[in-house]
């Protein structure tokens, strides 16, 4: 059976993912020109490469249309309900580090923990006539963290597809849930991360769709083994 690996189609993630596979003895070459969205692994007719956008990779893995993918854990956990039942995180690849965090305005001097935020949220409507609003593109992770881990129900999510860090200052939301790698953008926007507000420490992962056909497939075992050995 041919095994398909989905790789990021552009940017830093594409280079880093290809580099890892090359070190694992699976050098990726594009089919046709190097803008092509299909590729192969030199000397391996049993592996195909599909270049996809990072969020498509998590979706296609969820559907099982590709067997493996290299993408951020945050996108997989946000994109798929019950991610661990549907996919296996085979290896953490050591690049694409980003934390998904809860950040509030620095000037909220009284708020440093989720418990503080719970207090503020419980009171919010009585004071302001509306719920506390959270700007984020991470609906699922936010709901799981706020409701599941911290029992906070009383908030509303406002969807934000870009420049989320600016939302509190502009007044379009009270707080944010977003990714950060160095924290510089948060600081520049006068936001602080709650001490227990790290939802997920994400990085690029080799992710496998849990498919029955994979059981006993030597190619699957080979790919996972090679990538893991490279990281030792």
């Amino acid at each position, binding site marked *: 059976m041919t095994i398909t690996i989905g790789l990021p189609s552009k940017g830093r993630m594409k280079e880093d993912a290809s580099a890892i596979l090359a070190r694992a003895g699976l050098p990726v070459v594009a089919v046709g020109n190097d803008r092509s969205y299909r590729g192969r692994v030199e000397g391996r007719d049993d592996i195909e490469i599909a270049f996809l956008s990072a969020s498509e990779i998590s979706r296609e893995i969820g559907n099982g249309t590709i067997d493996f993918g290299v993408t951020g854990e945050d996108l997989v956990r946000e994109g798929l309900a019950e991610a661990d039942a549907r996919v296996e995180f085979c290896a953490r690849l050591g690049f694409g580090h980003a934390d998904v965090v809860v950040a509030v305005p620095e000037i909220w001097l*009284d708020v440093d923990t989720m418990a503080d935020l*719970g207090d503020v949220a419980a009171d919010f409507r009585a004071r*302001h006539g509306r719920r506390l609003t959270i700007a984020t593109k991470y*609906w699922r992770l936010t709901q799981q963290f706020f*409701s599941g881990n911290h029992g906070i*129900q009383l908030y*509303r999510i406002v969807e934000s597809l870009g420049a989320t860090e600016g939302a*509190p*200052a502009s007044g379009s939301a009270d707080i944010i849930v977003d990714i950060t790698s160095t924290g510089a953008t948060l600081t520049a926007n*006068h936001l602080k991360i709650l001490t227990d507000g790290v939802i997920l420490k994400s990085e690029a992962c080799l992710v496998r769709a849990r498919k029955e056909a994979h059981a006993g497939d030597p190619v699957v075992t080979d790919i996972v083994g090679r990538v893991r050995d490279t990281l030792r």
Partner: protein
Amino acid sequence: MPLTNLPPFAADLVADLESLGTERVDTPVIQPAEPFLDMAGEDLRRRIFMTESETGKSLCLRPEFTIPVCLRHIETATGTPKRYAYLGEVFRQRREGANEFYQAGIEDLGEPDAARADARAVHDALHVLANRLPGVPLAVTLGDQSVFEAVVAACGLPAGWQKRLVHAFGNQERLSRLIADLSSPEPSGVFGPEVERLAILGKLDDEAALAAHIDATMEATGYSTNASRSPVEIARRLREKIELASTRLDARTLSLLTGFLSLELTLAEAPAALAAFAGKAGLALDDALARFDARVAALSDAGVDAAAITYRAAFGRPLDYYTGLVFEVTPKGDPAVLAGGGRFDRLLTLLGATDRIPAVGFALWLDRIAAAERGAA
């Protein structure tokens, strides 16, 4: 599964509801999603079926009837008191059972005699269930959020703690964890470096000066001072938090709270037990207990046997909008909730009613009633 799962007894049930002096209402299946998310919280989003209108308005399939019935009442502005009955399909993603199922129930809006209206809600739910399930022994559990609120207030706890405790009520695990936190000898509260700096500068002592400092910082960093939390609100809560950080829940209050929350007895015995608790603890609970006793009396006036109802002091239902009575009916020895309800005196105002309209109601799960009927046959 059959295409329609309307139980065969639906017509009889509608007749029962009508005989209880109600007016039948129907509401659109497609509802604006906002009120449900606003009242029940964002977590509901995962469990309702949402869609969007062409203009981008969030819509959902009716997940329950209370909010639609209340909204309809506000729109039609026909005055109170009103007793509405409904029967129809609701749509929710459930872990067990179908995603679309039938519910029926009564919403009793604007009855000024709260005890009487509460008693009527419990009576009506039991009456309808008894007619559908003759011979099935039923268990009724009853709780009262307002008694817990009164206990917490009478204990003289700081306002910040009262709010936290009341908010956690009904969720046993969260409430126990919170009480353990408040009584642990470890100092609580985490403060950032800026707060420590202000403390050294002595800027935390005066609320007005602190608020002025916050205001100036917000101006300087481009934050609007009125779009979200205001400088005064932040300053006040910071001072409250500093005060609470060094206060612990003392042993006596801790044992009072846990003693109260462990009360579980028949409703007939509850008034005496609560009075004894208040007397022994030296807590002034007169108003809350008077309302509680009036409800017990109204229940026996309505012909409900208080000795057959279990009162659990810690019993609440996981919905933010209940304000007093809450109750659930199950078959004896079976966790399946056949009927659940309670009092929601703030909901209509939150939904936009200009007058305060006290309200109480209950919902019946027709699929579970049908299952209990099959089990009994």
